[in-house]
C-alpha cells in the first residue's frame, strides 16, 4: 500500500519563475494538506484541500495556490518565486473525520 507520494523530490528554480509540486495521497485518504518547512523551522501550514476546494488556509500570500483533482491528488503552485521560498514542501493526507496525517517525503525546492 503506497503512502503519500510527492514529485519531484528536488527542484531548482530561478527567482521570478513559477513552480508546480505534486502529491498523491495515501489510498483511502480524501484530504490533502500542504506544509512549508524552512531550514531549522517546523512545518508551517499552507492550506488544506477537500472535495476539490480549499477548506482552510494558513498565513501565506496569494502567490501560493493549489488544486485538488477528483482522484484526490493535489498540486501546489507558487508564482513569482522568491529566495525565501526555498524550503522543503511537505504534503500530508488524511481522511475526513479521522485524526492523523500521513506525510510524504517532501519536495526540496531551491530558489536561486
Amino acid at each position, binding site marked *: 500500500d503506497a503512502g503519500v507520494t510527492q514529485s519531484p523530490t528536488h527542484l531548482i528554480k530561478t527567482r521570478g519563475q513559477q513552480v508546480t509540486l505534486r502529491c498523491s495521497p495515501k489510498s483511502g485518504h480524501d484530504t490533502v*494538506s500542504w506544509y512549508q518547512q524552512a531550514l531549522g523551522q517546523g*512545518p508551517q501550514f499552507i492550506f488544506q484541500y477537500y472535495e476539490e476546494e480549499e*477548506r482552510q488556509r494558513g498565513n501565506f500570500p496569494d502567490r501560493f495556490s493549489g488544486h485538488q483533482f477528483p482522484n484526490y491528488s493535489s498540486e501546489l503552485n507558487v508564482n513569482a518565486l522568491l529566495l525565501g521560498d526555498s524550503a522543503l514542501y511537505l504534503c500530508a493526507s488524511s481522511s475526513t473525520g479521522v*485524526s492523523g496525517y500521513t506525510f*510524504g517525503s517532501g519536495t526540496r525546492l531551491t530558489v536561486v
Partner: protein
Amino acid sequence: DQQVKQNSPSLSVQEGRISILNCDYTNSMFDYFLWYKKYPAEGPTFLISISSIKDKNEDGRFTVFLNKSAKHLSLHIVPSQPGDSAVYFCAARRPGGSYIPTFGRGTSLIVHP
C-alpha cells in the same frame, strides 16, 4: 507568533539512558497534542499523542506527559536507542473538523552508542 515552542534545538543522550524532549504552548484552546519523528530525507511520522483530558500516555518506550496548568508537555524515551536519533516535532491541535496541527521547530535528538 510561535504557539508551539520547542526551546531546545538539540539533545544528545547516551544509549540506554532517558531522553526527555520538552514542548511549551501558548494557546489554551489546544486540546490534542502530538509528537512526530522525522528522519533525514523522509516525511514526519506520527509517534504518540495525548488528549487534553489526560496527563499521561504511554506506548512502549515512549511516554508523553501533559501539564495543562503549565501549558507544557514532554516526551520521554526510555531506554534511548541509536535508531531514535531523529528530529522530533511537537504539534498541537484545536477542536474542530479540520484536524490541522500547529508544529514546533523541532528538537534534534542524537543517541550515542
